[in-house]
Structures are given as structure tokens and as C-alpha cells.
């Protein structure tokens, strides 16, 4: 049965700042997905997962999209080894719900790495080589991928792994969907002593305290990250709350629900998130831990790993204009100063949001050629789109990151220049040898990764 696509204009980036018309295919089987990939039409094509990328990395305006959410079947799970094989559209939330139920003693299989939302697909997690709060312990998602089946625009399907087609495998991990269509993948889950966690939140007064806490927590705590009060200036610059957690032996908690309890039904024309509410929230949040400034608790990992997943479509809170997300990583040698400079610039602008996250990253290498993480410190935050002022701020932050020898995260980005991308990802020339000429994306064209641009260069 031939598969046909439909013209749609409702595929948008998670930040809401990128939209466009796409010819969309919604395959329900791997065979249909392959047919969609090779369907004639001339226009370039890109896999679309669950739409959680903030910018244009998951979109292909004017071209074709293969919506992989119908490729949601598990293929095999070995309960002894913890190796799961599934189609690319299975979400991390589905793996948690189906495979990560605790045994009576609380232990169980668990995601080796998870980003800040469990509503991403396995294909998307590989294509963006996502990381999580345990990066200093487990590295990127790509480290735990044992193999994948990749369909190419020429009709072939290649089994890639560190052993077979290792170069194409390395290019596909973090390859932003540009090496072909990931059909299925084999992922090594991780055994934990308890699916529940023991967690601690600690208030800190500034960046030096943050880095001290991060260093102190590295050995004993597998999940670490800090919330930063991005409005604080002067002596309070970089103040925030450090959160650390670890799986707790004997404590089993069932997986969280697949659908959020609260949902934001539509985007308001004006965002309720503005300077005033931001100031009120940040001040209150910074003081939430009371006089002691420290709180310890034991319970579900949902609060530690997925605080935002509780609110469905939370991105709509930013209103109809949407928002930008900025995430960078800067190397350890300059991390303290570069982060201070970024925070000072943000605080001076008065922009920024409640969600500012600072985290140190470890030095575990990823197999991916274009993987984002590197040893250093990573800062992530949202900026409501107010037009020119927001773009000017983003450009200023980008310049600071480039000067510090850092890089920006394609999965979050909508604005970085081709030059910034090229400088941040030194293995780019190697990567370009493995791209599939049938694939492209809004991001690829913007930063000069598109094949035609490559040939012209």
C-alpha cells in the first residue's frame, strides 16, 4: 500500500518560534516509514519525533517530514541483560512505563540517561545525543546505544553499531537526523538498586559555592543540577538552589503517568510570564528552603528528573509569540568566569526566566561526532521572544560562549550562526562525509550543513 503525505502547517518547534509548511507522512509501520523516505517528490526529508526540540533542528520547513510517532512498538526486551530493542518512535516515557516497574525489593531497570522531559522519542534522543543530570556519571544517551537500523534515502537499510558501520554509527549519534532515518534501536538499560531516589536541595549564595557543591557531589550523587536566580546581580550573582539525588536501595516507585495531570489548553495572546512575575517567583523560590537552606527527601524520581512534565504543553505559558531556549557548555578552565559573564549579561538585560539551570558536565566521551556535551559547565535558560532585544541578547551570549571556546546545543537553538556552529564542533568535516543527501532540516540550512551549501563551499 503506497503511503501518502498531507500538507500541514501545524508542526511547530517546542519554543513556538519556528513553523512552516511541511508535507507530512505518518507511517504506522517500519515498511511504511521506508516507503515515505524514498517517496518521490524531490524535496528533502527529515524524521520528526515527539516535537520537543526547541528550535528548527526537528523541522524541515518547505520540505517533507516523517512523523515517527506511529513507530511505537517494542521489538524485544531481555529481562536478564536489560537490553531493549524498539522502534524509533517509542518514547522514553513508554520505556519507563513498560519496563521500569520496580521488583518487590525496589530494584529495577532504568533509563541510563534521560533529558529533562521523558516525552522524547528514542530516535530523537539518539539524533540529539541527549544528556541528563547524571552526565558526570553516565555520559550521553549515545553511550548506551548498542546499535540501530538506519534507512537511507537510496532505499538501503544499514545496521550500525560500534562494531558494524562504526563511522556511520558515530555520525548518527547526535547527527541531528541528517544521516538517514533511524528505524529502530537497541539500548542498554541500567540496573538501579531502587527506582526511587534520595534527594537533597541546598541553597547557595553564588557561583563559587555552586562549583564547590558540584565538586563535592560528583562522587556520591549521580544526579546533579542547580536552579539559578537569573535576576540576581552583584554579590548575589549566580545564587540558586543545588539539587542532587541518587537511587535509593530498597525504595521502589512505580513509573509516573503517561499523560500529565494538568495541561495548558492553548497559548494566551499575552504571556503571564513577565518581568514582575519572574522577580516574584525567583525571590520566593530562592527562599523556599526556609532558614536552614537545605532539605532532604526520599520519593519518586519524577520530581528530580521531570519537574516540567507534570504540566502538559507548558511551552504555551510563554504565550503566542513563543520563546527561545539558550544552552551552552563552556570548558572547565574558563567555566567560572564565562558563566559569571553570561549571568551578568542576562541579569543586566532583565530578560530570562524562572527556568535557568546550571550543571557541570563530566569528561566521558560520547561516540557521536556532533555530540554537544564536553567537560565543563552548562547553562540553560528560556527567554520569552520579545523581538529584537531578545535576539540581541542571544547574540551577545553566543559571542561570550565562542570566546570561551564553548558551544551551543542544536536541540535548543534557533539563532546561532554557521560560524559559531563550525567553531563549536571541530569534527564537523568528518561528519559531513556521512550525511544523507536526501535529508535536510531548517537547522541544517541555517548553519550551512545542507548538502547544496556543502557542495558550494
Amino acid at each position, binding site marked *: 500500500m503506497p503511503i501518502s503525505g498531507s500538507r500541514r502547517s*501545524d508542526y511547530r518547534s517546542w519554543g513556538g518560534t519556528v513553523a512552516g509548511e511541511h508535507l507530512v507522512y*505518518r507511517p*504506522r*509501520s*517500519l*515498511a511504511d516509514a521506508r516507503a515515505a523516505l524514498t517517496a518521490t517528490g524531490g524535496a528533502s526529508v527529515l524524521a520528526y519525533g515527539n516535537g520537543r526540540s526547541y528550535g528548527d533542528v526537528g523541522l524541515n520547513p518547505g520540505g517533507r517530514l516523517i512523523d515517527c510517532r506511529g513507530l511505537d*512498538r*517494542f*521489538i*524485544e*526486551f531481555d529481562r536478564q541483560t536489560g537490553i*531493549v530493542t*524498539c522502534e524509533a518512535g517509542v518514547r522514553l516515557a513508554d520505556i519507563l*512505563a*513498560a*519496563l521500569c516497574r*520496580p521488583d*518487590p525489593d*525496589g530494584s529495577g531497570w532504568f533509563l541510563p540517561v534521560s533529558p529533562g522531559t521523558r516525552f522524547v522519542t528514542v530516535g530523537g534522543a539518539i539524533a540529539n545525543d541527549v544528556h541528563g543530570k547524571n552526565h558526570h556519571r553516565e555520559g550521553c544517551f549515545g553511550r548506551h546505544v548498542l546499535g540501530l537500523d538506519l534507512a537511507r534515502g537510496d532505499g538501503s537499510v544499514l545496521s550500525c553499531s560500534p562494531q558494524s558501520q562504526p563511522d556511520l554509527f558515530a555520525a548518527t549519534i547526535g547527527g541531528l537526523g541528517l544521516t538517514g532515518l533511524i528505524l529502530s534501536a537497541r539500548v542498554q538499560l541500567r540496573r538501579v538498586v531502587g527506582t*526511587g531516589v534520595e534527594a537533597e536541595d541546598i541553597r547557595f549564595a553564588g557561583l563559587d559555592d555552586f562549583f564547590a557543591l558540584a565538586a563535592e557531589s560528583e562522587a556520591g550523587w549521580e544526579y546533579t543540577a542547580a536552579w539559578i536566580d537569573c535576576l540576581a546581580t552583584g554579590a548575589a550573582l549566580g545564587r540558586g538552589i543545588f539539587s542532587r539525588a541518587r537511587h535509593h536501595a*530498597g*525504595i*521502589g*516507585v*512505580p513509573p509516573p503517568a*503517561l*499523560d500529565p495531570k494538568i495541561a495548558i489548553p492553548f497559548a494566551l495572546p499575552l504571556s503571564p510570564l513577565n518581568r514582575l512575575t519572574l522577580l516574584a517567583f525567583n525571590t520566593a523560590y530562592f527562599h523556599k528552603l526556609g532558614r536552614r537552606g537545605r532539605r532532604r527527601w526520599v*520519593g*519518586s524520581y519524577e520530581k528530580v528528573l521531570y519537574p516540567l512534565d507534570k504540566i502538559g504543553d507548558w511551552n504555551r505559558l510563554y504565550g503566542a509569540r513563543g520563546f527561545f531556549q539558550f544552552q551552552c557548555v563552556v570548558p572547565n578552565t574558563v567555566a567560572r568566569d564565562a558563566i559569571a559573564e553570561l549571568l551578568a549579561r542576562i541579569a543586566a538585560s532583565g530578560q530570562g526566566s524562572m527556568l535557568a539551570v546550571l550543571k557541570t558536565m563530566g569528561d566521558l566521551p560520547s561516540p557521536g561526532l556532533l555530540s554537544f556535551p564536553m567537560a565543563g559547565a552548562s547553562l540553560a535558560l528560556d527567554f520569552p521572544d520579545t523581538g529584537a532585544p531578545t535576539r540581541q541578547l542571544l547574540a551577545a551570549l553566543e559571542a561570550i560562549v565562542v570566546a570561551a571556546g564553548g558551544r551551543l546545543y542544536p536541540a535548543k537553538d534557533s539563532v546561532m550562526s554557521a560560524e559559531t556552529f563550525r567553531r563549536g564542533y571541530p569534527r564537523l568535516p568528518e561528519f559531513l562525509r556521512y550525511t544523507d543527501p536526501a535529508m535536510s532540516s531548517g537547522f541544517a540550512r541555517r548553519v550551512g550543513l545542507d548538502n547544496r551549501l556543502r557542495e558550494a563551499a
Partner: protein
Amino acid sequence: MTLTAPSRSPSSSPSRAAIFGANSGIAVAVARRLAASGARIVLIGRDGEAIAASARDLLVRGAAEVVEIAGDFAAIGTTGDIVERAWTAFSGIDLALIAYGSLPDQAALEAAPDAVEAMLSLNLASPAVLALHLASRFETQRSGVIAVITSVAGDRGRKSNYLYGAAKGGLQRFLEGLRHRLYAARVQVLDIRPGFVATRMTEHLPRGGPLWAEPDRVAADILRAVERRRAVVYTPWFWRVILGIVCALPRPLFHRTSF
């Protein structure tokens, strides 16, 4: 220690389920929920490859055992054989879900009425005959559930879809009678009436808006109705209200509407 483990009550979930039309979007969602509770499941459908992929998926999701049966429900003469094979797979069935059907293009059928026969056959005659084959077995077993997906379209004939509505409305009457017949044998007959569900069957319709439901929500409603031994379930629930109003509209008013 396990902190909490609610929502999983294996005792109330049928341990042997047979799903006729196992590739339909709603059927897949029901099967996944059954698998999570450890059920043994028979999948019957036309597309063998899709059935096989679904079987593997259900095993990973926790199904104790899955049996695949290839069958084409448009060939009504074969439904007796299909039921026989499904019944013997696990020596009996606790929940039989009849989930197949096709959503025809009303205008195309009006333009070419000869195609109506095949549509009525697949949406009315076939499930009725299949349910009759099941009924005698359930009658002897004296327990179990026959659940059939009809549609809100069967509640009142409307110009936009009265041919499909005729098939589904006919099926509703059939189930009403079958329920009467099987009451004495304590066999539940459930008439499932979904509204707009985002599945492959509705792929060609413009989607979105508050009336559309995801298959998993419908599946949850179906299993709750099975648990509560209901006769008819509208899913999502608001369709009961909507159809109550539609059916109550006086004819002169109704005829002026265009839906």
C-alpha cells in the same frame, strides 16, 4: 518496599483476551493495557506483518502469551473458523473485542451505491455473524464479555454519514438483542460508542479540537466499562450528552442542521 502500586489490579482484568481486528488503533491501545496486566492475548487481523509486530510489542509490555491468527473478516464465511481458532488458543475467552470496521466516504457511496453492500457487510453483517459464533461458546462457558465497537454515528441517521450510521445502528440493535439473550448465561455484551478517535481510520479527516480523543483514552474507558459490566459506553463520556441532545432535537429543527 514498594511505596505505592495502585492502578494495577490483575484480578479484574480478563486473563484471556481475543481481539478481532487487532490492528485498529483502538484495538492496539486496549491490547497494550491488557498486556501490562499480564493477560494472554489472541490477535486476529488481515495484515500478518502488522500482527506479528504487535505481538512482539505486547510480549515486551508484559503479556503472558500472544497468539497470532491471520483472518479476513470481509469473508464472512470464514468467521466461524476464525472464532474456533481464537477460542481454542487458550481454551476459552474472557474478553472478546470486535474492533474492525471501515469508515466509508458517504458521498462516494451515494454516487456509487453498489459499494454499499460491501460496506454493510464489513461493518454490520460480519461482526454480527462473528458475535453469533462467539455467543454459543460464551453461553456454554457461562462467563465472559463480548465487547463490540460501534459508533456514535449509529444513534441517529444524519445526511453526512447515514450509510455508516445504518451499519453501526444496526449493530447496536443486534447487540441489544444479544445482550438480552446472554443475560441468563451471565455473559456481558458491551456496546462501545466512540466519537472522533485519532487513528488510521480517521487519518483523512481534519483533526484537533476538544472532540478528538487519543486511542489510549478510549481504551481506558473500554476497560473500565468491562470492569463495571456496563451495557453501553460512550467514549469519551461527553458523547453521551452530545448524542442525547442530537437525538432529542425535534425533527423540524434537526432537518435544518447540516452536520
